[in-house]
């Protein structure tokens, strides 16, 4: 029987049981966090790197978790920040514009061994890449994961109203791109 979040937090707070409890954390949340990251960075290798960074940051910062949000929310926040940091540093490394980085991401996606989508799905990913990063995040979280606006607010620190507006415009833009190409 898997422990509750309360039991897990108790075990995480004690040095003797910390690593065992964190192992459960990894196995419980790794898939959700992986896909959250992967939808943004697109490549499996990059998603793997960011996911590792996420969990190591969580491990090193366990004592800093104050319990003012759900533990899963805290993990999502770390994953989101690590993803945005990764994309920023990628841009700075190549000293390219945002458009160039997105073009690179798209090229990586098309060449990726682990991309197994059809033409329409590729079209959707291309359309999503035209969105600003934060809007892309909102779109992915709402469209693919069905995360509520209240949960998104806790993760992203943006108001529900702003998130709703962001999603509304994202869908409008993507749907328009689809219609134009028909």
């Amino acid at each position, binding site marked *: 029987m898997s422990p509750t979040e309360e039991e897990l937090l108790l075990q995480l707070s004690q040095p003797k049981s910390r*690593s065992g409890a964190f*192992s459960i954390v*990894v196995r419980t949340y790794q898939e959700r966090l992986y*896909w959250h990251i992967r939808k943004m960075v697109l490549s499996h290798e990059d998603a793997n790197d960011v996911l*590792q960074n996420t969990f190591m940051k969580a491990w090193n910062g366990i004592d800093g978790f104050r319990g003012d949000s759900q533990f899963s929310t805290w993990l999502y926040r770390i994953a989101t920040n690590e993803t945005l940091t990764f994309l920023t540093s990628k841009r700075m490394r190549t000293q390219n514009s945002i458009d160039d980085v997105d073009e690179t991401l798209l090229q990586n996606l098309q060449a990726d061994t682990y991309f197994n989508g059809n033409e329409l799905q590729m079209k959707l990913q291309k359309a999503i890449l035209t969105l600003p990063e934060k809007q892309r995040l909102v779109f992915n979280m709402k469209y693919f994961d069905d995360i509520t606006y209240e949960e998104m607010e806790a993760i992203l620190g943006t108001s529900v109203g702003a998130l709703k507006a962001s999603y509304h415009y994202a869908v*409008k833009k*993507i749907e328009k791109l689809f219609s134009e190409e028909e």
Partner: protein
Amino acid sequence: MTNRENILLEKVGKELPFGVPENYFNQFALQIEDQIGHKHVVGRNVFKSWMFMAAMFVGVVVMGQLFYASHQRTLARNADNYETYVLSQVDETSLVDYYVDESNK
């Protein structure tokens, strides 16, 4: 859900077009556990293993006792059966003669 979102869902759906290498998540978890210095015990934990072994030992002892007791009863039954068999092969007159001779010794 908005109309536009419905159109998108109808056209493309929600399935992600990405895959992962085989056994990726298990390997990833093992990697992280290695980095944090945790030894992952597959399946039951160590305490449960000891309990299982203890239960097995008790089971073997109990089964042994039961088997031994049953075997002893079988032996006794066989002995009774044999005596009954032997007596059935001897007629009454010979039997009486035997007991009389024995008592005269």
